């Protein structure tokens, strides 16, 4: 996973891509996942971190994770898997 290192993420979920000037608003879980990605955590590590923290099943986390990554890719916030 190559997340654009220039991307600025604020604690409240505001994301700014200085390359395009685009900005985005994330909810709290999106903010958390993006910060994990910035720390170069793997998919397995991220899913585990969320499972430990929230009352949720593995399938739902994985499904939402994949969908969220597709959105990040669409907006060119990540480059590849």
């Amino acid at each position, binding site marked *: 996973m190559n997340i654009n290192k*220039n991307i*600025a993420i604020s604690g409240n979920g505001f994301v*700014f891509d*200085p*390359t*395009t*000037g685009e900005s985005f608003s994330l909810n709290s879980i999106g903010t958390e996942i993006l910060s994990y990605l910035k720390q170069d955590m793997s998919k397995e590590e991220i899913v585990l971190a969320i499972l430990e923290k929230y009352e949720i099943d593995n399938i739902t986390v994985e499904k939402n994770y994949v969908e969220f990554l597709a959105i990040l890719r669409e907006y060119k916030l990540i480059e590849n898997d």
Partner: protein
Amino acid sequence: MTKKKITVAITGLNNTDNPGPGIPVIRGLLESTFFDVRIIGLAYENLEPGIYMEDHVDKVYSVPYPSIGTEALIKRIKYINSKEKIDLLIPNFDAELYSFMKSAKVLEEMGIKTFLPTIESFEERHKANLDKYGKQYGIKVPKSKSIFKESEIYSLSDDFDYPLLVKGKYYDAFVAYNKDQIKTHFNKISSKWGVPIIIQEFIKGTEVNVIALGDGKGNTVGAVPMRKQYITDKGKAWGGITIDDKKMISITNDLIAKTKWRGGMELEMIKTNNGDYYLIEINPRIPAWVYLAVGAGQNLPEALAKLALGIDFDYFTDYKLGKMFVRYSYDIIMDIDKFQKLSMTGEI
């Protein structure tokens, strides 16, 4: 440090919803740490809002439209200079630049400096010459064709797909989806700005702009890329943000090096989803959003004044990312006296 006192004459006080660069250029000059600037506003119309912005202009004179003739314009400048001793003149309209470039020597003899592109580099970047320009300087440009008569619209279909852009020589651009719309836009633009009308391929992508200043020797004095965030119905930026676009800076540096561009400029480009950049227009002067560059750390109006007056300084190498501007409208309340004085005497 004592600031150097200078008197600068500036046009483009039309701070309307299609703003001229005059007031933002003045703001940059007034914030100069090097110059103590007296501003002489030059107005073509009596209701240009900048005329009445007393914090920005010290004195205003009306000047004749360049279309009346360069001679009348220069005669008027000569009169204004006899009263004000102008050190530097910064014209801000595309349509007046030719007159001032042609008169640069006469102005110099009056003691008035300018810092303008050469007539050659001004002419070659015209929208009507964009195809040739792209080939000559190795920049991707949208396919375009100049047309002079309405009847030429009917032979366009072989070369262009819809939608396409219909553009005036100096100002205005409209999207057309069929021949009837091209015809409407052709008549609307040509009645205002004359011919040719430029028919241009529509490139899908994000519009990104760069403001830059060339020193006339091939060096970039400063450059700041911006993406429009809020666009008016006239296509003007009402909000924008500085971006980290190294490719645009590289294109700008390359173009300035090859053309030895002298003065302010704005490159309007479309960045496609594939990451290609198409040059759609070069404005041969400082654009109205110059104050964003000042806010991002590059006081380009001050730098232009230094270049014009032969003052050495270090060129800009950096700017702040994520700096934004948002315009607003504002009502100035005044008595009729000022308007009356300008209307009757031509100065205020």
